[in-house]
C-alpha cells in the first residue's frame, strides 16, 4: 500500500479524487442517519426521568462532538497550510469551518430546546454552554477574517494563526469545567449520561455520531471542490474538466 500521498497535495489532482469520495461519505451518512433516527425513535425506550424530551440527545450530542472535533481538524489543516505553505491544506480548513460552525449552532439550539423542559430555562451560563458559545464565536471569527482579506495567501495564513490561537483557548475553556465544579458546587449540570444510558439509547446516539461525521466529511469535500474551482478558475486544467 505505497500510495504517494503527496500526489494528492495539489488542488488539481485532489479535485477529481474528492469528487469520487463524496458519495462514499454522503450515502453512508444518509443511511446511518436513517438507521440512527429509527433506533432513536422506535427502538430506544422512553426515559424514566425526562420522558420523550431526551430524544433530542440523538442530535445534540453528535452535533456538539462534531463542533469540537471539526474545530481541531480546521486548526490542524490551517496549521499545516501555514507551516508548509500548501494551498490545499488551507482550503480544506476553510471548507470545514462553515460545517463546524453550523454544528456548533445546532448543538446550542438543540441544547437550549432540551434545557427548557428539563432544566426549566432556555439558557444557563455554565461552563459547558459558555464554552460552546465561545466556540461559535471562534468559528465566526475565523471565517470573517478569511473573508475580509482579499489576498488568498494572506487570508490563509492570517486565519490559520487565528485558528491556532483559538485552539490554545479551547483546553483552557474545557479545563475551566473542572474549576467550575470546585468553585460553584452543583452549578454545572452534567450532560454526559453515557454510562447510565440504556444500551439502545447509546447505540442510537453512536450511530448518529457516525452519520454526522460522514456528513461533515462529505459536505467538506464538496465545499473544497468549490473552493478549488473558485481559486483555480483561471487555470487550464479546470476549464478543461468543467468548462466544455
Amino acid at each position, binding site marked *: 500500500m505505497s500510495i504517494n500521498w503527496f500526489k494528492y497535495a495539489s488542488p488539481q489532482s485532489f479535485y477529481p479524487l474528492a469528487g469520487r469520495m463524496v458519495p462514499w461519505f454522503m450515502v453512508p451518512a444518509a443511511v446511518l442517519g436513517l438507521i440512527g433516527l429509527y433506533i432513536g425513535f422506535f427502538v430506544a425506550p422512553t426515559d424514566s426521568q425526562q420522558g420523550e424530551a431526551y430524544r433530542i440527545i440523538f442530535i445534540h450530542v453528535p452535533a456538539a462532538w462534531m463542533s469540537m472535533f471539526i474545530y481541531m481538524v480546521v486548526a490542524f489543516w490551517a496549521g499545516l497550510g501555514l507551516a508548509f505553505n500548501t494551498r490545499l491544506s488551507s482550503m480544506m480548513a476553510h471548507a470545514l469551518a462553515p460545517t463546524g460552525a453550523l454544528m456548533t449552532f445546532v448543538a446550542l439550539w438543540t441544547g437550549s430546546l432540551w434545557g427548557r423542559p428539563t432544566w426549566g430555562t432556555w439558557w444557563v451560563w455554565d461552563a459547558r454552554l459558555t464554552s460552546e458559545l*465561545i*466556540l461559535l*464565536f471562534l468559528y465566526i471569527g475565523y471565517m470573517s*477574517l478569511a473573508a475580509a482579506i482579499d489576498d488568498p495567501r494572506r487570508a490563509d495564513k492570517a486565519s490559520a*494563526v487565528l485558528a491556532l*490561537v483559538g485552539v*490554545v483557548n479551547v483546553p483552557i475553556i474545557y479545563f475551566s469545567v473542572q474549576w467550575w465544579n470546585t*468553585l460553584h458546587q452543583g452549578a454545572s449540570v452534567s450532560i454526559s449520561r453515557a454510562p447510565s444510558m440504556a444500551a439502545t439509547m447509546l447505540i442510537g446516539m453512536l450511530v448518529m455520531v457516525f452519520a454526522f461525521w460522514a456528513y461533515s466529511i462529505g459536505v467538506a469535500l464538496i465545499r473544497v471542490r468549490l473552493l478549488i474551482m473558485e481559486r483555480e478558475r483561471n487555470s487550464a486544467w479546470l476549464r478543461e474538466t468543467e468548462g466544455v
Partner: protein
Amino acid sequence: MARDLLIALRHRSDVLTTFFFFVIVVSLYPLGVGPERETLREIAPGVIWVAALLAAMLSLARMFGTDYADGTLEQLALTPQPLVVLVIAKVAAHWLTTGLPLVLVAPVLGLQFDLPADSLATLSWSLLIGTPVLSLLGSVGASLTLGVRGGAALTSLLVLPLYVPVLIFGAGAVAATVTGSGAHGHLTVLGAMLMIALVFAPWASAAALRISLE
C-alpha cells in the same frame, strides 16, 4: 517602548479618551440601574470588567495601526531586532496607557457601586492580572487585521472569544469575594491565563505581523 510611550504622551487625548470612556461607562450604570445597593453590588464586577474589555478593544487599533499607516512598522520589522521584542514593547505600551489607568481608578469606581473593601482589593488584583492578558490577546487580533477592511469591528469580533474567559474569571473573582466564597481559585486561573498569554501571544502576534506585512 520608550518611543511608544513618548508618542502616547504626546497624543494624550487618545489615551485619555479611552480612560474617560471607561470611567463614564461605568458611572452610567448606577444612574441607569438605580441606587438599590444590592443590585449595584451584584452588577459591579461585571460592569467594570465589561467596560475594561471595551476600553481594551477600542484602543487596539492604535497598537499597530498608526505605525502601519505611515510605514514605520515595516521599517521596524526590517531591523535586526526580533519582531517578538517589538510586539512585547507595543503590548507593554498599550497596557501602561490603557490597562494600568483602569487598575488604578477601578477602586474609586467600585465605591460608586458600594463594593466592600475586600471586594475592591479583589477587583484591583483581578484587573491587575487580567488587563495585561487583554493587551496580549488584543495584540494578536490587532496584528491579524492590519489594514483589513472591517477594521475595528472585525478586530473586536476576533478578540471577543479570547476575552470571554478573562471576563468570566475576572468578574467572577470579584463576585466571589462579594458573596464570601473566596476569589483565590479565580485569581489563580487568571494568573495561569497571564502566563499562557505571555508565552504564546507575542509569538503569535509576531507571526501575524509578518503575515500582514508581506
